[in-house]
C-alpha cells in the first residue's frame, strides 16, 4: 500500500495539473464555467495545497472556516437542553469536542480584488483523519465516536469515507508535539533512533553455544583484518583473506559521515548482537552504530575512530543525526495543524457560522486539552485567534440584518439563499449585492456551484459569502476599504466581533475577549423560556421504574408536598427527570425523606405516595451540582441512569448525602434572591397545542431519544413544553450540523 501511494499521488497530481493547464489554456479565467469541483485536499496533495493556501491566507481580508465531525452528541441526554446552565453547556460542548473526530475541514480565504470590485474566494476542502503517526502518543486521542445519525446525514450527501480514512491528513496538536519533543529530549523514545553502543548497552549474552563461540571468533578475525587494512599506509583494495563473495557482501566498506566503516548486511539479530559483543570486548577504536530508520534505511555499522575525542565526536554526530531524523518525523506528523497554525499566526479575521463547537474542536485537536471552564477556554482561544466573528450572531443581533432576515431561519443554507441569491441561485447581481468570484486552481467563476452541498469547503464558502453580504448591508463599503485597514478593526463590527453562541438553543452568548456570558434578550428568541430556572431548586431523579412518566412523577410530588410544590418536571431521557421545586427547602426535604423511606419498610413507607417513585430500589436523586459533575465525566453511556451509575454512584445514600452537603453550601452562598421569580411554564397558554404538534413531530425528529428498552416513556406523555423544548433542541442541533 505504502509503496503504491507516491506513484498514485504523483499521477493524480500530474493529471490534475494537465487538466487545469488545458482548461486554463482553453479558457483563461472566465465566468462561464460555473460548475467545477472545489479544491479537495488529501495527504497526497497536502504539501502543494498548503503552500498555495499560505499565499491566499496572507492576502486575504478574512478566512471562513467550517468543520464536519463524526458526530455531535454521544447520547440523547448530552444534547443541550433548554434550561442547561452555561457551565453545564460548556461541559457538554467540551465532551463533544473531546469524543468526536473532525473528518473534514473547510477553509476559504476571501480577498477583495479592488480592480474588479469583487471578492475572490478560494474554497479548500481538507479531508482529515486522526491517524496515529507517532508510536508513543497516548492512545485515547486516537479513539473517537461515530454518531450513527451524523453518519447517515453525511452519507446522504455522498460523503467519501474512504477518502477520509485512507487519504485523510493526520495531525498533532501543539501539546502532542511538545510532548513528543520532550520525550525525544529526555531520551525515552527509542524508536527510529540511531544508537551508539558503548560498553554497557549491549545485552550480556553469555557465549555458551559452540556455534556462537566459533562465530564470534570468526568475526573478531574479520574485523581485525579490516582494522589492520585501514591502518596500512598504502590503500589497496580491501580483500578478506580467503573469504567468499558472500562475506564480502556482508562486509561493505563505506564512509559513515567522515569515518570509515563497515556496513553489516544480512546478519540475523542474534549475530548482530554477537558482533556487538566482539567489538566491545576487543576493539577500543571501533564503535558499533545502529542507525534505525524506516525499514529500508536501518543500518548496522562498525565505525573506526582514531582517538577518544574522535569517538566522542562520532557519538555526538550520531545522536544529532538521530535527533534530526526524529524531529523531522515529528514535523511531518504535525500535518494538518500547519493550516491552523497559519490561520493563527496570520491573525486574520476568522468567520464561522454558529461556530462555538467548531472552535472547541480546533482547540482540542490542534492546540491542547480543553480547559475545564468556559472562561479559561475563551481566554486561551483569544490568544490564538484574536478575531472571530460568528455570522449567526451577526444575523441575529444586528438591527439592520435582523430586519432583513425578517425572522426567517438563520441556518447556514437558508441564510445563504436569502442573503446571497446572486450566488446561490445565479440571480442577476443587483448593485447592492457584494460580488464574489471563486477561484480554484486556475479556474474562476462569478456564479460558482460546486454541486457538493454540506461539505466543509462549500459550507465555509457560503459562510464567507453571508459575511461579505452582511457587511455590505451594515454599511461597510469595500470599495472605500483600503487594504491596509483590517476588517477586524472596523467599528461597525465591533459590537459583534468575538461573540459566540455557547448554545443556540438557549441563546447564551459568550464574549471571547473577557469570558462574560450574556443572554440574548428574550426579544430575539422565544425559546429562552427556561431563563428563570432556579438551579438550587432543581433535583435530578433517575433509575425509577420505567413505566413512570413525567406526569406520574409530578403527581407523586403533588401528593407528598402539595400541589404547588413542583414547578416543572422535565423528562431528560427515558431514565431520568429534572424536578424543580417551588422552594429550595423542599429539595433537602425530599432528599432526606427519600432516604428515610428507603431505610424503612413499614406499611407507612410502603403506602407513601413517593414509594411509587422508589419502587424497584434503583431510584437515585441528586442536586443540579451532581448533574454538572456527571456531565463532566468522560464516560459516554447512552442512558443517563447508566451514566450516573458509571460515574460511581454505587450507593444511593452517597448521592443523597453528597448532594445534601452540596445543598448546604449552596444555600449558604446563595440566598435565593435574584432568581426567585419564576414563570410557571406549564400554564403557558399555548402549551396544549404545542404538545399536540410536538407529539406528531417527536417520532420523526427525535429518534435518538428512544432507547432500546421496552418502555416508550419519551413519546406522548410529556407535557407540552417539555416535548416542544426537546424537539427544538433536537431540531436545532440538527440544524447546527446541517449548516
Amino acid at each position, binding site marked *: *500500500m505504502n509503496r503504491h501511494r507516491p506513484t498514485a499521488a504523483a499521477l493524480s497530481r500530474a493529471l490534475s495539473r494537465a487538466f487545469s493547464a488545458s482548461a486554463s489554456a482553453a479558457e483563461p479565467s472566465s465566468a462561464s464555467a460555473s460548475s467545477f469541483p472545489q479544491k479537495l485536499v488529501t495527504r497526497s496533495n497536502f504539501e502543494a495545497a498548503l503552500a498555495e493556501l499560505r499565499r491566499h491566507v496572507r492576502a486575504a481580508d478574512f478566512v471562513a472556516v467550517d468543520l464536519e465531525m*463524526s*458526530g455531535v*452528541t*454521544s*447520547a*440523547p441526554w448530552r444534547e443541550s437542553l433548554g434550561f442547561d446552565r452555561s457551565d453545564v453547556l460548556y461541559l457538554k460542548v467540551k465532551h463533544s469536542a473531546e469524543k468526536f*473526530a473532525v473528518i473534514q475541514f473547510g477553509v476559504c480565504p476571501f480577498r477583495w480584488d479592488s480592480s474588479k470590485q469583487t471578492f475572490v474566494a478560494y474554497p479548500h476542502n481538507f479531508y482529515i*483523519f*486522526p*491517524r*496515529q503517526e507517532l508510536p508513543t502518543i*497516548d*492512545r*485515547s486521542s*486516537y*479513539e*473517537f*465516536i*461515530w*454518531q*450513527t*445519525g451524523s*453518519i*447517515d446525514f453525511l*452519507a446522504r450527501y455522498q460523503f*467519501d*469515507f*474512504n477518502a*477520509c*480514512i*485512507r487519504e485523510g491528513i493526520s495531525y498533532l496538536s501543539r501539546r502532542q508535539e511538545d510532548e513528543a519533543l520532550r520525550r525525544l529530549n529526555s531520551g*525515552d523514545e527509542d524508536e527510529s533512533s540511531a544508537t551508539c553502543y558503548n560498553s554497557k548497552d549491549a545485552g550480556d549474552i553469555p557465549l555458551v553455544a559452540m556455534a556462537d563461540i566459533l562465530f564470534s571468533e570468526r568475526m573478531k578475525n574479520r574485523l581485525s583484518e579490516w582494522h589492520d587494512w585501514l591502518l596500512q599506509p598504502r590503500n589497496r583494495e580491501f580483500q578478506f583473506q580467503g573469504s567468499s563473495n558472500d562475506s564480502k557482501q556482508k562486509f561493505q566498506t563505506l564512509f559513515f559521515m567522515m569515518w570509515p566503516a563497515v556496513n553489516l548486511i544480512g546478519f540475523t539479530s542474534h549475530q548482530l548482537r554477537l558482533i556487538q559483543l566482539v567489538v566491545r570486548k576487543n576493539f577500543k577504536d571501533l564503535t558499533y552504530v545502529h542507525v534505525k530508520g524506516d525499514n529500508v534505511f536501518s543500518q548496522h555499522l562498525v565505525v573506526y575512530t582514531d582517538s577518544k575525542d574522535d569517538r566522542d565526536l562520532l557519538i555526538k554526530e550520531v545522536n544529532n543525526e538521530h535527533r534530526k531524523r526524529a524531529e523531522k518525523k515529528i514535523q511531518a506528523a504535525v500535518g494538518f495543524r500547519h493550516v491552523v497554525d497559519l490561520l493563527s499566526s496570520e491573525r486574520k479575521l476568522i468567520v464561522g457560522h454558529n461556530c462555538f463547537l467548531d472552535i472547541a474542536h480546533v482547540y482540542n485537536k490542534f492546540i491542547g486539552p480543553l480547559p475545564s471552564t468556559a472562561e479559561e477556554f475563551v481566554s486561551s482561544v483569544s490568544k490564538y485567534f484574536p478575531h472571530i466573528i460568528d455570522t449567526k450572531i451577526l444575523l441575529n443581533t444586528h438591527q439592520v440584518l435582523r430586519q432583513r432576515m425578517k425572522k426567517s431561519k438563520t441556518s447556514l443554507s437558508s441564510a445563504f439563499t436569502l442573503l446571497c441569491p446572486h450566488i446561490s441561485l445565479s440571480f442577476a447581481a443587483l448593485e447592492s449585492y457584494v460580488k464574489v468570484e471563486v477561484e480554484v486552481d486556475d479556474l474562476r467563476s462569478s456564479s460558482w456551484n460546486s454541486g457538493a452541498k454540506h461539505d466543509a469547503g462549500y459550507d465555509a464558502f457560503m459562510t464567507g459569502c453571508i459575511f461579505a453580504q452582511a457587511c455590505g448591508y451594515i454599511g461597510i463599503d469595500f470599495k472605500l476599504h483600503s487594504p491596509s485597514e483590517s476588517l477586524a478593526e472596523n467599528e461597525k463590527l465591533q459590537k459583534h466581533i468575538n461573540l459566540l453562541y455557547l448554545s443556540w438553543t438557549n441563546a447564551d452568548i459568550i464574549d471571547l475577549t473577557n469570558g462574560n456570558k450574556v443572554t440574548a434578550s428574550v426579544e430575539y428568541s422565544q425559546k429562552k423560556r427556561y431563563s428563570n430556572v432556579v438551579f438550587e431548586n432543581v433535583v435530578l431523579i433517575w433509575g425509577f421504574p420505567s*413505566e413512570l412518566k413525567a406526569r406520574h412523577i409530578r403527581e407523586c410530588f403533588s401528593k407528598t408536598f402539595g400541589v404547588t410544590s413542583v414547578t416543572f418536571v422535565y423528562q431528560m431521557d427515558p431514565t431520568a427527570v429534572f424536578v424543580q421545586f417551588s422552594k429550595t427547602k423542599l429539595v433537602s426535604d425530599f432528599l432526606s425523606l427519600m432516604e428515610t423511606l428507603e431505610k424503612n419498610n413499614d406499611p407507612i413507607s410502603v403506602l407513601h405516595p413517593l414509594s411509587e417513585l422508589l419502587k424497584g430500589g434503583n431510584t437515585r436523586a441528586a442536586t443540579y451540582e451532581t448533574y454538572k459533575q456527571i456531565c463532566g465525566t468522560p464516560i*459516554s453511556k*447512552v442512558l443517563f441512569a447508566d451514566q450516573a451509575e*458509571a460515574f*460511581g454512584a*454505587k*450507593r444511593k445514600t*452517597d448521592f443523597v448525602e453528597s448532594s445534601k452537603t452540596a445543598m448546604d453550601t449552596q444555600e449558604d452562598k446563595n440566598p435565593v434572591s435574584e432568581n426567585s421569580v419564576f414563570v410557571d411554564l406549564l400554564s403557558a397558554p399555548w402549551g396544549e397545542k404545542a404538545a399536540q404538534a410536538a407529539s406528531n413531530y417527536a*417520532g*420523526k425528529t*427525535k*429518534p*435518538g*431519544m*428512544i*432507547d*432500546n*428498552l*421496552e*418502555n*416508550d*416513556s419519551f*413519546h*406522548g*406523555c410529556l407535557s407540552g413544553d417539555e416535548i416542544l423544548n426537546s424537539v427544538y433542541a433536537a431540531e436545532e442541533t440538527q440544524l447546527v450540523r446541517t449548516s
Partner: protein
Amino acid sequence: MAVLQKRLFCSAVPKKWPVKQVTKTNFPESLEEIKRHISSSDFVAVSLQKTGSFSAPWHRLLPFDTADTAYSKAKSSAERFQLFQFALCPFSLENSKLVAHPYNYLLYPRDELKLGMPSYSFSCQSSHLTSMAREGFDFNACIYHGISYLSREQETAAKIRIGNPSPSTLVVDSSFAPSVADSIFMERLKSRVIRWKSACQKPKDSRNEVLMNSLRKLIMGSEYYGSRPSINLDVCSERQVQLVLEVLREFSDELVPLLIPAKSGGTQAVRVVLASSKEDKEFFEEELRCREEEENKKFRGFREVIDLISASQKPVVSYNSLTDFTFIHSKFLAPLPPTIDEFASSLRPVFPHVLDVSHLMKVVRPLRKVANIPVAISYLNNHFFAPVDIEISHQATENEGRNHGLNVIRICHLFAKLCSILKIGSSSTMSGNDVLLAPALEECTNVFNAFSTSSEESIDEDISVWTESTRKVSCEHLVFLWGFGSGTTAGKLKSLLNKSHYVSSKEFDIRLVDKSCAILVFWQPGLAETFLDVMNNSEEITGSLRELVSEGLRAASYETYKRVCKLPIWEADLGESLDRALEDSDCLTEAHSKATPKEIYWSNDDMINLDEL
C-alpha cells in the same frame, strides 16, 4: 522465511479462496443459500471485524485476569465498539477434507426504522480503521450498503413502538374465572359483536351501500381490514383482553382477533376481523403469518443469520470466543448482563456449543504463545503431518477485487489441522457430535461456562499440559504496586523491595503491567497480606520501603483490581484506576461478600512484555 513460504505453497491451498461477499443488495437472496449450507454442515466458524479493541495496555486480557475481570474487559469493549464485518463459514470435515462455504457480511448499524436503533453512537480506534483501510476495506460500501440489524431485545421494543397488530391465539388462561362484573362486560361485548357481525353479513343493498358503510363506521366503529370487515374493541387491561378473547372463542370459525399494542407496552385494543368462511379464515391467517414473516425480516436484518445458526444448534467455532460472543450477545441478543455467570446462562440456550480455537491451540504446547492464526498454521505445517484439503463450495465471484473475510477460512483450516493432529473425531467421517465428545475439546467448549463454575478439577487435570514454569497461584497472593517513578523496570523494583527486608527475593516475583503499575506475586500464602499490612500501616514501615512509600508508592490487593474492572474504572493507566477505586471504596460500606478466591496461572514465560503493550 523461505522455508515457510515453500511450505505454504506446497500445502495444496489455492492462493485465492473465494469468499462470498454479502451486502444489503444481495442479502435477501443469500439467506436461503446460507440456510442450506448451515444445515448441511457440521460446524459454523465465525470471525468478526471490530472497530476497536482496547483503549489502554492494561484493558486487554492479561495473564492474571480471572474469568470475572476478563469478562468485564470484554464487555466494556463489546459495548463501545461496533462490528463492520461478520464472516461466517459453515463447514464439514471428512477424511482431512474440509468442505467450507465462506460468507462475508458487511454490517452497518443503520437506523432503518427511524427508531434510534440499533445504536445511537459507537466508538472507533483510528489504528483499527487504518489497518482495515490497508487491507482494502471499503468504508463507503460498508456505510452505504452494509446490512443493518436489530438485537432480539430491540426487535421486541421496536414492534411495540411501531404498533403493528399481532395475531393472537384464542387460547385463554386455564385459571380463568370470570367475576360478575366480568360476565356483564362479556355479555355486552358479545351482543355488540353479534350485532356488528349480522350487519356485515346482511345481503348488500347496493343503493345505500356507501351510506350504510359510513353509518356503520360511525356508530359501531366498523372498519375494513384489507378487504374484510373489522371492528376495534378497546380494552383497558390485560384482564379485559382475556375477556374479549373468551367471548370471541364462540365465533372462532369466522373471527380472527388481532392485538393492537399500546405505545407504552401492553395492549390497547383488540381488532376483530370477520372472514367470510372457514376457508377464508385460514387463508387470512396464512396471509397474516406471511406478512409477519416479512415484517420480521425487515426488523432483524442480519440477525436473521444469527438466528439461523442458533436454530441449527450446530457447534460454533471461534478464535477468541469470549471477545466474539460478548459482541454477538450485545449486538444481536440483548445488552450484556453484569456477570459472566449470567452471560453464560443467557448465551447457552442460543449457542449451546462454542468451540474456542485459541484454547484448543494451547493443547499443542509450542502453540501456547502463538497469538496469530497464520503463524499457528505455518507452525503446524512445518512440524506435523496433517494435510487438510480445502474445498470451497462457490466459485470466485465477479467481485474479484474484494475478497474479505479470509480469516474465517483460516480459522476453519486451523481447527481442521488441530483436530487431525489431536486425533479428535478419528472416525473417517466426523460429525459435530463426535467432535463434541472428544475430551480434548472439553476444555475449549464454552470456555465462559468452564470459567464461571469453580473449575478447579478440570484445571488440575490439565496441569501437565502447561510448562513446568507455570505455577498456579491464588489471587490472594497477588499485590498491585504503583506510584513509582516512570522508567522503573521490574528488575529495579524487585531489588528495591528486596533491600527493604520485608520480603526476600525468593518469595516473590514482579512484572510490570503497564508503565504505571506492577504486579507482585508471592509464592507463599499469607505473605501478600503481611506485605499489604506493612504498606498500609506506615507507622511500622522502615528503611527503603518507607522511602518508596514516601515517594508515593502504593499497594492494593487483587480485590481492588477486581473492583476496578467491575465498576468499571477504565483510566488509561492502571495505577490511576486503582487510585480511584481506593477513593471510591472509602465511602463504600463494605457490603461486598467475600467471593471465593479464584486461581490463575502465573507463568514465567507469560511475561507481560512492555514492547507488546
